[in-house]
C-alpha cells in the first residue's frame, strides 16, 4: 500500500526525491487514516527554512490537532494551496494530490536515514 518510490519517516511523513536537491513532502495514508477526516491544514510560508524533525505546520481532523514535522531540512519552494483550501485531499489522496510542501534540500544526506517502503511497512506492522 505504501508506494515504493517514496521514502518514509517514523513520524509518518513521506518524501518524494524529485532531483538531487528537490523533494516533495506529505503524510502517509496510515497517518491520514489515523487522523480521520482532515478539516484544516496549515503549511509554512514559501521562502522559509525548515529543519529536519522540526514543526512545519499543523493538521487538524474533526477530533484532534497534530503538528506536522519535516522529515528533511531545506528551503520551502512551494506549498500546496489546494490542500489548505480543501483539506479532505489529505484523506482522498495522501500520496498524490494531498502533498504538503516542496523543498530544496539543504542536506541531501538526510535522505539516507529515511525508511524504504519495505522498512516503513515493517515499522507499521510492529506498531500493532
Amino acid at each position: 500500500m505504501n508506494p515504493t518510490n517514496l521514502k518514509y519517516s517514523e513520524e509518518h511523513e513521506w518524501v518524494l526525491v524529485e532531483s538531487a536537491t528537490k523533494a516533495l513532502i506529505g503524510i502517509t495514508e496510515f497517518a491520514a487514516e489515523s487522523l480521520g477526516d482532515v478539516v484544516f491544514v496549515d503549511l509554512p510560508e514559501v521562502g522559509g527554512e525548515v529543519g529536519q524533525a522540526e514543526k512545519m505546520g499543523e493538521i487538524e481532523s474533526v477530533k484532534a490537532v497534530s503538528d506536522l514535522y519535516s522529515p528533511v531540512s531545506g528551503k520551502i519552494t512551494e506549498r500546496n494551496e489546494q490542500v489548505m483550501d480543501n483539506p479532505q485531499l489529505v484523506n482522498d489522496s495522501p500520496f498524490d494530490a494531498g502533498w504538503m510542501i516542496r523543498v530544496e534540500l539543504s542536506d541531501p544526506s538526510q535522505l539516507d536515514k529515511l525508511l524504504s517502503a519495505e522498512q516503513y511497512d515493517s515499522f507499521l506492522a510492529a506498531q500493532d
Partner: protein
Amino acid sequence: MQRTPLYETHIAQGGRLVPFAGWEMPIQYASILEEARAVRNSAGIFDVSHMGRLEISGSGAAGLLDSVLSVNASGLREGRARYNVICDETGGIIDDCIVYRRSDSAFMLIPNASNTEAVIQWLAQWRPADSDVEIVNVTSEFAMIAVQGPDAVGIVDNLCDIDASAVRPFTTVQAMIGPSQAWLARTGYTGEDGFEIIVASDRVVDIWLALVDAGCVPCGLGARDVLRLEAGLLLHGNDMDTDHNPYEAGLDRFVKPDREGYVAGPALMRIRDESLSRKLVGFVVTGRGIARHGYAIMSGAESIGIVTSGGHSPTLETSIGLGYVGIEHAEPGAVIQIDIRDRLVDAKVTELPFYSRRRSE
C-alpha cells in the same frame, strides 16, 4: 468500563470504540463527516444506550419531579415529553434531561451518562421520607437508539405497527417494531427530525440491524457532537455545569422558577431579576483555524471567556463554537478573537442555532 448491548454489533460494523463517561462507545465508523452528512441528508442511527434511563413512579412522582425539574411535570399530559434542566439550590446546572410522562403516575427521565448517579442522588435527597415514589434505574434493562435525519420518520414508520409520522414532536408512544415492544419518542439531539427508541436490551440488536438494513447509516459520538453543535444544542459538562446557571446558558425558556416547592426556585428568581455578567454565545470563526474546547476567547489582548464547545462544521464549512463571554461582548455581530494555540483568529458572535432544518408545513 461498561458496554451497551450493541457493543459486539459496533465492532462487527467497524466502529472505532473509545471510553466515554465510563462506557465503551463508538466515536466513528468510517468517517465522522460522512456520518454527519448522512444525518443531514438521509438518516443515521446512533447507540445512545449510555444515557441514563430512570423510572419515577408513584402517586407522588409528579410532585417530586415538580420540586427538582425546571418545568412543571404535573402539567405534562400523558405521552408528552419536555426538555428541562435540573438545578441545585444555587441555580447551578446538575444536568439537562428530557422527562417523559408515560402515565398518570409514571415518568421516564433521561439524564446524561456521566450525571445519572448525581441525578438519582438529587432526586433521592428531595424525596419526602413518607413518599410512595420509587426511583428505579433501568439503564441496563433497556437500550436506547436514536434514528435521525429527513428519512428517519419514514424508515421507522415502515418497521413499526403504528403511523409513526402521526407522533408529534416531544411525544412518546408505545409501538411494536417486529416482535419487540418499544417506546418511540419524537425527540433527538441532532437538529433533524427523527425518533429516540427505547427497547429491552435483548431486543435492540435486531432492531438496530433492521434499521441499518432499511438505510440508516451507523453513526458514532463524533458525528453526534458535530450535529448537536451545529444545531446549537448544549452539552452538559462542556457548555453548562454547576458553575453556570440556565439564564447565562440561554435556557430561559425551559425554566419556570416561580413555583411553590421548587428547590432551585428562589436562587433562579434572584438570578433572573439581576443582570447577567456573562452569557453563552455562539460564534463563527471568520479567519483560518478551528476553535476547540478550552481555547481562550479574546477581545484584542483582553481575555473575555473560554470556548466550551468548538469544531469544524461540515454543514457551514467553517469552524463554529460556543463559549461564555462577558455580557458586553455577547451581542450578535460582535467581533471577537479565538486564541488558537497562540494565534489570534477572528470570529463573529452569531445567533443560535447555527443550523436549523427546513421544516415541511
